[in-house]
């Protein structure tokens, strides 16, 4: 702790000295010096019709060359007016007084215009907006429903949200974070609906970030989390605008980060990890069934292998005779104890999973299939693992994919290992101790200082309609109580 404080002290000092030097009045020489050795920076001198000299400075890849020609160079050449800035046909011209400001504009895709006569520097924002087109989300695929997803372009992302919630009360606050990256961060919320506490906490947390690089929203989340040492995500990351709009409407805040297609929604609860956008598209009975199935498969994926280990090492009494009949027979020729057997098989599975993920799509699929089938089959035939275990490992692996949030799928495996160790140690009791530890941990977790197990503990009865089941939308008359929204009712006319 002591060390940290010392470091920040030095950093501040350096920064101060830099700002001091940069606050000197701007000269062309100074600017030239700033862009020294920058191959992509251009300085162009032109003359207007009445022979006034003007200098354009810009970084070529950052600007829209066609628009520069059309909106700046051409009008200026033909310019006959007294002031150069009057000739340019863009919406906003910024007057710049310091070198630092000039550099900032330059690096964000502005074109600097140096008026040699008035000795004044102007900046015109003509940034290059090229980027990826709007595509279908690949991380949260759904069959029905909106197909658009966020891109790396933050303005475009805001557009997508604003189109869905055309309200002036949908506020967006801008922050610049990261001393190196100067990342633009937008905090969005609906004023008069979202609990002001969330907004102020989020604002405070973003303002307190002091780091050089913020390249991704997950990095931002890491700095905003209440609990650094937890395996569970405390922010919902999504690239679907409809999910964001839903979250905003329910009274959450959304944080967009420039150059990332994933935005953060908060506060979330553990149960949000199990909700898929498709839940609100399916019929409510079907959606409820699917949701219950997800919780079930989460538990299955956590517990099946540990239960196998617990039963075969400690509690042969618990196995029904019919199953024991199969189990004793297959296990009696295996060299490894159930614990090591399942540990190795789980590790192998993780390796296969990870490998197939990193491979190009088609070979990845191949690898998965071959890895799964061949390795599984071979290890049974070679006598390293029992068929029963292969079946169980397979089912639990598939079950783990049912959880819509991929981050939890990763955490899942780790939790599984911990419970596995406890199971081999204390049998069924160990498994339950693991579950209790998990519950206790979740119970103490917070997201934006709101309890992570929200509608359950603390208990909010009304929210249960959209928790383990997804009740009919008609019945969900109020916004989630756990989020303490300022506007309670979803209906504008109360019935």
């Amino acid at each position, binding site marked *: 702790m002591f060390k940290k404080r010392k470091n920040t002290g030095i950093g501040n000092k350096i920064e101060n000295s830099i700002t001091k030097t940069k606050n000197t009045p701007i000269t062309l020489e100074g600017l030239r010096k700033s862009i020294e050795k920058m191959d992509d920076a251009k300085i162009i001198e032109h003359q207007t019709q009445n022979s006034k000299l003007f200098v354009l400075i810009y970084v070529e890849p950052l600007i829209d060359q066609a628009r520069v020609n059309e909106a700046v160079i051409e009008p200026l050449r033909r310019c006959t007016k007294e002031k150069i800035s009057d000739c340019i046909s863009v919406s906003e011209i910024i007057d710049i007084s310091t070198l630092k400001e000039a550099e900032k504009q330059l690096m964000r895709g502005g074109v600097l215009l140096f008026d040699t006569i008035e000795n004044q520097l102007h900046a015109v924002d003509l940034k290059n907006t090229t980027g990826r087109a709007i595509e279908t989300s690949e991380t949260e695929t759904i069959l029905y429903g909106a197909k658009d997803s966020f891109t790396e372009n933050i303005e475009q992302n805001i557009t997508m949200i604003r189109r869905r919630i055309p309200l002036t009360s949908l506020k967006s606050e801008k922050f610049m974070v990261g001393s190196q990256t100067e990342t633009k961060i937008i905090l969005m919320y609906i004023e008069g609906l979202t609990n002001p506490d969330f907004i102020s906490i989020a604002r405070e947390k973003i303002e307190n970030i002091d780091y050089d690089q913020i390249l991704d929203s997950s990095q931002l989340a890491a700095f905003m989390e209440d609990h650094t*040492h937890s395996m569970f995500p405390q922010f919902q990351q999504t690239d679907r605008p409809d999910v964001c709009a839903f979250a905003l409407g329910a009274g959450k805040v959304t944080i967009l980060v420039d150059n990332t297609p994933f935005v953060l929604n908060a506060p979330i609860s553990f149960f949000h990890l199990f909700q898929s956008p498709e839940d609100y598209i399916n019929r409510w009975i079907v959606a409820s069934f699917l949701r219950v199935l997800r919780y079930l498969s989460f538990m299955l994926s956590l517990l099946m292998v540990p239960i196998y280990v617990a039963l*075969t*090492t*400690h*509690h*042969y*009494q618990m*196995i029904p*005779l019919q199953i*024991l*009949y199969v*189990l*004793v*027979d297959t*296990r*009696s020729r*295996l060299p490894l*104890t*159930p*614990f090591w057997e399942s540990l190795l098989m789980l590790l192998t599975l993780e390796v296969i999973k990870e490998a197939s993920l990193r491979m190009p799509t088609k070979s990845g699929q191949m690898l998965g299939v071959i890895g799964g089938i061949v390795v599984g089959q071979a290890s049974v035939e070679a006598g390293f693992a029992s068929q029963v275990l292969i079946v169980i490992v397979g089912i639990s692996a598939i079950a783990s994919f049912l959880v819509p949030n991929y981050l939890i799928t990763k955490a899942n495996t780790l939790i599984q290992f*911990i419970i596995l*160790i*406890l199971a*081999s*140690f*204390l*049998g069924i009791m160990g498994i339950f101790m693991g579950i209790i530890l998990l519950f206790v941990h979740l119970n103490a977790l917070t997201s934006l200082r709101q309890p992570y197990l929200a509608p359950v503990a603390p208990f909010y009865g009304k929210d249960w309609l959209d928790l383990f089941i997804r009740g009919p939308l008609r019945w969900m008359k109020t916004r989630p109580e756990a989020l303490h929204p300022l506007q309670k009712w979803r209906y504008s006319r109360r019935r």
Partner: protein
Amino acid sequence: MNHKHAKIIFIIFVNIIVLFGCSPIVEKNLVEEIAPVTFWSVQKGDEEKYRMSTLIPPLVKEKKRLLTVQVDLLKEGVKGFNLKYYRELKLGQLRMLLISEEIATEGISPLIDTILTDPDISKRIYLVIVKGDFDEYINSQLGVQQDLDYYLYRMFKHYDNQGKMTVVNLHEFMKALHSPSHSPVLPVFEANNENFQYLGTGIFKNDKLIETTNNLEEQIYQLLSNDHFLKYFTLRDLSFVLGHVKADIQLDINKAYSELMLTVQLDGRLDEIAREHDSLTRDELSRFELEIESYLEKQTADFLKKLQENKVDPLHFRNHTLRPFSKPLEEKEWSDKWEQMEVKVDYDLKLQPLKDIKN
């Protein structure tokens, strides 16, 4: 200390313990190293008190053999098995206890108590009385039938609560033993080197076997007590077979406990008639009904008489003397009254002919 560090240390600590194989649990239950026995057969020993045998290895598809030890104490037997066999025998999956008739007539309390106190053994274990030498039967079947023990267990499980034969587990036995009537029952099987077949219900007085029902008594017993249902009710003396017989029983003991009125409403089909008769008419059917009724009334009365003489009450008539707001009878008092009680039986049979009948 930060609690997060403590958590990590705790996990490391657990890991160390596990990896070094140090566990607070002394007993090892790895499935591949144990032999969970599914049944025990206890017979009277030659010199020692008991001769115990079981089939090993249980559950594994290996060549099986019968393992027998002679012991004085039941648990000594378990130990004896372990000394003889390379896998440790475990009792957690014990499903059947076969007790020889000789032991049963002397009282099975010592055996049962041992089984009862063992926390490993389920209360669902089936208790069976065996007449004859069960070991002989197993030995003869070793080559013929695979996994005999398992199929035997499946048989009991199948007939449990079905009302075709008496199937009693430890809990039911104990509950009946401690009930006011103190007359539990157990199924009795006969074993010789070819056959293992159901004989009837063994009726106990406290823990001693008193009486085994014969064929007809057995059927009456099943109707009166055990689920009140019989799939086939053979009346050999009358050459009838009734099918799917359901009984509805009304019991009435008078205030002075001197008279028991048993009314049985029977519903069934006439499945088979093994006597000469013309095509079945309604008159004839009602004649048959009367005939069967009076026959059953007599047989049932005789059966109950026998029970009275033996002072046993497997049908739990004593429970019916309990009233919500009056003091229950003393043990001795009841026993005397039961012996003296006058029993009246009334059957009311409703038969359904198999085919349509003419008037």
